[in-house]
């Protein structure tokens, strides 16, 4: 079995739920309290994946980057060396989807080969959800995908 480690960043606006997502993914717990970060918090998640007839133990070092504007300048440093990123948006705030393009551009300008994943968060808050139509979300994502491909 091969063991490899990769740096993965979580990007998204303030309070879209990046920290909660990490908590859920890494520690399998969900804390509804908002945890503010000081700019970045590193967590680890190990997964076993098959690859080319072998098994790979992949350790993802999750860099949870704060979405606050005050960390905008330092964020570029944190993105260095990232193999990929999870772009997180908040379904209750459509403007958080728009920002994802900026985050994606920032990351790809530093790491052109980085892989991206999109995560739409807070789907359970149906009463506050402003992007209720799945098609609308899909449209946003498709649009983002086209921009990234371009």
């Amino acid at each position: 079995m091969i063991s490899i480690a990769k740096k993965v960043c979580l990007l998204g606006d303030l309070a879209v739920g990046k920290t909660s997502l990490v908590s859920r993914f890494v520690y399998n717990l969900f804390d509804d309290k908002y945890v503010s970060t000081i700019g970045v918090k590193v967590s680890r998640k190990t997964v076993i994946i098959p690859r080319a007839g072998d098994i790979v133990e992949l350790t993802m070092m999750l860099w949870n980057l704060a979405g606050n504007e005050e960390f905008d300048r330092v964020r570029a440093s944190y993105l260095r060396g990232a193999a990929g990123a999870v772009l997180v948006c908040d379904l209750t705030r459509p403007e958080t989807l728009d920002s994802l393009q900026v985050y994606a551009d920032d990351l790809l300008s530093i790491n052109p080969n980085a892989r991206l994943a999109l995560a739409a968060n807070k789907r359970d808050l149906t009463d506050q959800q402003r992007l209720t139509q799945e098609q609308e979300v899909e449209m946003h994502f498709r649009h983002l995908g086209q921009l990234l491909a371009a």
Partner: protein
Amino acid sequence: MGDAIRRKIRDARDEMVEALYPIIGRTVIRAVSEAIRDLARAVDAQMRASLSPQTLWRRLKARIKGVPSAEVALREALPFQVNEVFLIHRETGLLLRHISCDPEASPDSDLISGMLTAIRDFAQDAFGRGQEGELNAIQYGERRIMIEAARHAYLAVVVDGIEPPGFRAEMRERIIDIEHAYEKTLRNYDGDPMPLAPAEASLRSLLTAGQPRALSPAQKCVMTGMLSLVVICLAMFCLSGRWVWQVMHRIPTPLPVAVEPTFTAIPPSTPTATLSPTPTVPPSPTPTLTPTPAATASATPTPVIGLMLGNVWIRTEPAAASPRLGLILEQGQSVEILAVFGDWCQVRWAPQAQVEVVGWVPVKWVGTIDPIPAQIITPMPGS
């Protein structure tokens, strides 16, 4: 309550200090006393080991540098320990290697390496705007994280106490060595730390860097040089002594020639023939028998040649208790066998031209190729 205390402290600081001193002051005094006692113990231990090579070397260094040896001992007594060593990929913050002196060290070393990298990046962005320089140490209580970076990787070493001089240079040396050895792997790091496994041995040496260790290569060179000098001096002394001894003993003194016992085996033409005052052998039970081989010896035309098998004193009579002539027949010396009496053999040799010496040596130290003729062997009584 808390607010009231804060307000009281702000308004009447002196009063509060006086009120708290009996409690806090005593605690502080106790802590300081304990710390000083520990330091004294450490200095004492250093002094007790004052005859070790390391201490002698340290004293020599202190003398050369002009620093009092007491200060050097005090400096050496300050505790220092390397707890953990992290080798971290600079760009990604991924942990490449981790070594700890504690086998039950935190398993979150990879998280620490990530956070350390984030802190370094943050410090660089916050304070290093347009300036050269990097974060090279983080202090946390008594513990310190020393950081030394190369182009693609950096070393973070967690230490307690004050590092000895040269420790940071050693860190720098290690990271540069690793950078050179694994430059390609580090430049295109794919997340697999296995190719860097051999670097662990190099990092492990940092763990023992603060402990008393064997002599440095320079010290070893000096010590080896001094030892070689001593050995050479000793060898020269021995050789010269041996040469002097040989010279002194090769020159025949008049004394042995004067007292040598002569038997008729000495040809009349030799100068020693006339110097034989006492042919008798006092301690021997058969002193009167000794002259008898003389007649037979003179009758044999061909001399019997022997070779000395060891370094042997020459004696005046065929007995161990008889006086020595003051000469030693050396191993390998060729001698002429004049007579054999019991376990003793009378020999003659010429240490110099015109000088002959005759005396008795144990027969076991004289080797012959041919058997000794019966006519020069004096039969013992009862044999």
